[in-house]
């Protein structure tokens, strides 16, 4: 095996260790999500905690399994634009609905 190939193999081995660690973390967070739901917290607290745990889990999947932690700038730009439109999509209808902000 050439030196370059050996470096490459060692690099992938390191990646695999990270994948296993992320897998364990995702399993633990899934159990935490279910355990918290059993506490029957008030809706606002329950939604906040569930969202925080889901965002952590989602970030782990996106960062390590989807390799976003070390991607090219163009992909970050595409995703940045997507996130901006996603939040606009999510919150504009809520604003129009809840207090008539746009209606009056």
């Amino acid at each position, binding site marked *: 095996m050439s030196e370059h190939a050996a470096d*490459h*193999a060692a690099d*992938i081995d390191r*990646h*695999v260790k990270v*994948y*296993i660690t*992320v*897998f364990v973390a*995702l*399993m633990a967070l*899934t159990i935490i*999500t*279910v355990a918290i*739901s059993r506490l029957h917290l008030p*809706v606002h607290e*329950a*939604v906040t905690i*569930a*969202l925080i*745990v*889901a965002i952590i*889990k*989602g970030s782990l*999947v*996106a960062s390590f*399994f*989807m390799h976003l932690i070390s991607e*090219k*700038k*163009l*992909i970050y730009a*595409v*995703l940045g*634009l*997507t996130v901006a*439109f*996603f939040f606009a*999509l*999510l919150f504009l*209808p*809520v604003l129009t*609905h*809840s207090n008539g902000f746009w209606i009056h």
Partner: protein
Amino acid sequence: MEIPYTVEARPDTGLTNGKIGIWLFLASEVMLFGALFASYILIRTGAQTWPRGDSILNVPLATFNTIVLISSSVTMVMAWASLKRNRFGTFRIYQASTVLLGGVFLVVKYFEYSHKFENGLFPSTSNFLALYFTLTGLHMLHVMGGMAVNAYLWGPGAKLWKTNPEWFTNRVENSGLFWHFVDLVWIFLFPTLYLL
């Protein structure tokens, strides 16, 4: 005609065409599910009362399915890593596991849906169930699509490994990106529908 930039990166983007293509597609998918999540928020905040998911849905089954889908994401990324390590036999085992785990997810969903229908619970029964069936139904279609592509890359599509292994590895990476996205959507659907 040869497809350009399947293995080497395009100089202006720094990416293969396949990779930028799958990310643009995933961006459109975010908007698709985003529209449905926005509908969920609107309908839920506008409702006088809203049932807790666990009073209607089966949380243990959904928890099991969450574990299944997360496991399939790991087997998917391990399939790609196996190709990077030049171990085609190991790739096949991980890729087959990914497809099988997707199948397990669908079987569990089938039992969940059947149980609802037997109890007279349909999308027309309530807003909660309309959202539940729409969101999980669309997600299931994505699982089926991902399984079809992964099964193709396990079977007939794997011939490419013999002629152009780097291109094949990139294809597996791209199909993996879609599969992880499907997992990611479920990570948000699970608490939203079942636990809150």
